[in-house]
């Protein structure tokens, strides 16, 4: 694997995480439990899709095969998407969407904190730009986790169920392979194992406050980084890609 191939793959993984999560959040548009949250979730979606655009633009440039950000976002097959399984999980109720966001935000902020120091100037610039937005996302999701967890019996039980359900996807956030190894050596990527304990402590602090807990058993799933997804991604892509597949090259 050359450095160029590794960098392309690394960027796709980052971009796909943000695009797929952004798309999931956009599904809430017009369906939020209250108007303010409808607006909040779509604001988050906009930030994440914006970050995806920057990452895909750079990935396309690195790949240098004439594809652009739209080709990468809309015209790949399911197995070519490299996002983690967490972000493609269905929205469920509002609490499940919040827990999914909470687990991702806490990871993303620690990741961007380190990527701001990347030797790759473009990655550092995207991370420095995005982290300011992620701070708002993190505050929003963490506050809701506490409000729902430490809320009524009904909200507590439902959000605890989501924590238990989605905790299966935490380890995969920290997944690393030869792509990361090569880029860590170059000072381009960061070693996610270095901030795993910080992540665990940060989410535990909020979960404790929310009277919620992670399950004891540690059964974890992965595969997303190699393109092996849960059954949910195909349906999501069918909707995401529909217009470009039906009317190729359409713009509006």
């Amino acid at each position, binding site marked *: 694997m050359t450095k160029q191939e590794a960098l392309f793959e690394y960027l796709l993984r980052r971009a796909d995480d943000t695009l797929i999560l952004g798309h999931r959040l956009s599904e809430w548009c017009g369906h939020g439990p209250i108007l*303010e*949250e409808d*607006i*909040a979730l779509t*604001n*988050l979606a*906009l*930030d*994440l*899709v*914006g*970050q995806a*655009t*920057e990452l895909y633009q750079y990935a396309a440039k690195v790949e240098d095969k004439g594809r652009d950000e739209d080709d990468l976002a809309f015209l790949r097959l399911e197995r070519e998407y490299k996002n983690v399984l967490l972000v493609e999980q269905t929205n469920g109720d509002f609490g499940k969407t919040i827990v999914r966001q909470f687990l991702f935000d806490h990871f993303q*902020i620690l990741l961007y904190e380190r990527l701001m120091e990347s030797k790759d*100037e*473009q990655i*550092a*610039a*995207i991370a*420095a*730009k*995005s982290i*300011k*937005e992620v*701070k*708002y996302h*993190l*505050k*929003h999701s*963490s*506050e809701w986790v506490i409000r729902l967890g430490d809320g009524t019996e009904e909200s507590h039980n439902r959000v605890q169920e989501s924590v238990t359900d989605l905790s299966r996807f935490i380890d995969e956030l920290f997944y690393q392979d030869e792509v990361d190894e090569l880029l860590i050596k170059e000072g381009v990527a960061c070693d996610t194992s270095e901030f795993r304990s910080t992540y665990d402590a940060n989410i535990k602090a*909020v979960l404790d406050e929310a009277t919620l807990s992670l399950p004891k058993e540690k059964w974890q799933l992965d595969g997303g980084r190699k393109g092996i997804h849960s059954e949910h991604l195909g349906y999501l892509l069918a909707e995401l890609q529909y217009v470009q597949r039906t009317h190729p090259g359409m713009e509006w």
Partner: protein
Amino acid sequence: MTKDITAEQIWDFLEDVKDPEVPVLTVVDLGVVREVNKQKNGRWQILITPTYSGCPAMQVIEEDIKERLQKEELEVDVKLVLSPAWTTDWLSEEGKRKLEEYGIAPPQDEVDKSVLFGDKTIVPCPLCKSKNTKMVSQFGSTACKAHYKCNDCLEPFDYFKCLK
């Protein structure tokens, strides 16, 4: 034809280009225009930076800048740069004043967002100036605004939130 024109004049022309979402601010007030340079080929280059990654106004701003300068018979290149990342500190004092007049509370100095739950920022109501206001939602009508309500005059208002 490149007319004999200075960077200062171009900055002046750009004062006519408004933010499409907050039309009371110019792109200069907002700090979105970062640099005006003359390139080696003699063409002027305008560097702009987005407020938020997903800000849908950037394309419109780019087109509006080109259109404004075309009126001066200037063909310019507009380039989007991400670094250094935009901050509300770049909003001019004039811009903050205009925002408040328009009914949008300008950004206040806030504690670091990464400190959860420590946020006690007071955002005065842009209409009655009361400090007795309440945040309704951290996310408002555009990516750069939060939604507030005044407890005294009861008016809902937008707050141009701090981004650092």
